[in-house]
């Protein structure tokens, strides 16, 4: 699908091996939050993370492990207290159109139609819609939202709203897509369906994705890699590669020995992390 597929034309053949260029390189990230009581909280402690171009990385960890903090830093919504972030070789010093973000809630603006919502990123910040109109129509088709362009968000189901939010995040053709527990508020069945949908959208667009979740199954189902974080202070305790073939189908993948084995390992890590 032309228009929003990342151009990979001039990449060297060695791209196939492990020495893929890192799109995100985070080194020694420290984030401290001040609290009302005055005792500062160490949210992230010496976090190192590298994500290759086109890779789908899932971050799992218990509540309060700082995974959302890490995502906010990547989105440029917050500044790290120490360490260095770079996106495609350039330091991250604020929000950029190279990064698309999907929040836990769809956060569609109820006074705009679906079309107005998904085109919002290309209508603000001095950008113009013209060159992006066709690719966004294509994204709407991929996300199964055709015919709903002129509906208002409250006329759509929760799952459709979240798909619209994903289309919006991709509207600017970002290099990186960040998702913060995007399906956390959906019921289990819809969630499973949305996971398959997200994989489909991702396979069609081949963005680099960082997804935060506390669902182990979701992480293993979607990720090329699953990065496991410890409770506060957040540290990366394991980085697991998922070798399951794509496209993954829920019915096959959830029963696959590798899926079961990985899920068991991650569960062990998360439960072990609870004990001091």
């Amino acid at each position, binding site marked *: 699908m032309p228009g929003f597929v990342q151009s990979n034309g001039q990449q060297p053949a060695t791209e196939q091996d492990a020495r893929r260029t890192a799109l995100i390189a985070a080194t020694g990230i420290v984030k401290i939050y001040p609290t009302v009581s005055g005792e500062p909280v160490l949210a992230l402690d010496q976090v190192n993370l590298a994500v290759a171009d086109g890779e789908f990385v899932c971050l799992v960890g218990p509540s309060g492990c700082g995974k959302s903090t890490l995502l906010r830093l990547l989105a440029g919504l917050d500044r790290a207290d120490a360490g260095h972030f770079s996106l495609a070789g350039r330091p991250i010093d604020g*929000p950029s159109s190279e990064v698309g973000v999907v929040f836990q809630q769809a956060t569609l603006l109820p*006074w705009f139609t679906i079309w107005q919502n998904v085109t919002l990123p290309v209508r603000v*910040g001095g950008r113009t819609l013209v060159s992006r109109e066709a690719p966004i129509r294509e994204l709407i088709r991929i996300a199964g939202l055709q015919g709903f362009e002129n509906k*208002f968000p*409250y006329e759509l189901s929760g799952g459709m709203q979240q798909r619209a939010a994903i289309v919006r995040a991709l509207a600017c053709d970002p290099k990186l897509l960040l998702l913060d527990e995007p399906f956390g508020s959906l019921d289990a069945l819809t969630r499973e369906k949305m996971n398959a949908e997200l994989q489909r959208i991702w396979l069609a667009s081949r963005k680099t994705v960082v997804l935060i979740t506390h669902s182990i199954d979701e992480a293993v189902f979607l990720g090329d890699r699953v990065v496991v974080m410890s409770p506060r202070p957040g540290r990366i305790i394991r980085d697991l590669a998922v070798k399951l073939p794509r496209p993954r189908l829920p019915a096959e993948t959830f029963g696959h020995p590798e899926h079961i084995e990985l899920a068991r390992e991650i569960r062990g890590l998360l439960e072990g992390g609870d004990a001091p």
Partner: protein
Amino acid sequence: MTDIPHEPTAFDLIAASAVHAHARRRRERIRNIGIGIAGLLALLVLWKLVVVGLEVPPYILPAPEGVFIALWSGIAVAPASPLGFYLPLWSTLSNALLGFLIGASLGLFFGSLMAEFRPVETALMPYAFALQSLPKVAIAPLIVIWCGFGDGSKVAMAALLAFFPMLVNTFAGMRATDLERIELMQVLSASRFETYRLVKLPSAAPYIFAGLDMGIVYALLGTIVAEFLGAQEGMGVVITKAQAVTDVAGVFAVLLVLGLSGIALHLIVRGTQRSVIHWTDRGQL
């Protein structure tokens, strides 16, 4: 196949229940109107009984038909007649509306500035509080001194009274904007004005309309008060003239007209709100 008699399907039942719901709402509406009319009639009868039974003199409380006659003599005349309600009502309403537009716009402007810029809030909030606590009609004599006995003082009073609900509501509404929506705009590198125009202002719309609703009624109040203090025309003048000759029925008639005007203005604001803010009654703010 069409011959087979069939049990009603779910679709039939849904359609039937929709028809039922519609008919029930209709019946309820007719019943409510009936209750309203019955209540009004009961009030008029009670009023008449009190006036007759207690022998209340008409310069204290006129009988209902006296008020009706006064009302009729103000309505059943040529629009340009100096005896009718039309000229003074036009004067009062046009001054109130002009004042409302000025006051509400200024309220929206300064409320937005205060919500958007902390230093402006810090600088203006004490005065806003002080003036808000002050009974603003007490400023009317000063306004009349500054703006004279003409339309100026009426417009100014209306603007003054419409200003504060708009200021406070715009400020509160913008500050209540969902943080996630603001962060969304940050992620999109939207400018401050884009965030204001596309997110904060629509978020504050329900508050702003509540401010408009209050403001329009206050503007009418302000105009009447200014007219009491000195004016050549307007419903306030009609009231003072009637009061001078203890024509209490005449005062009642003017109050009735003003009350109905207030209700009409309120309904106009509510109607506009319904057509502008289509999303709030769907469980989303």
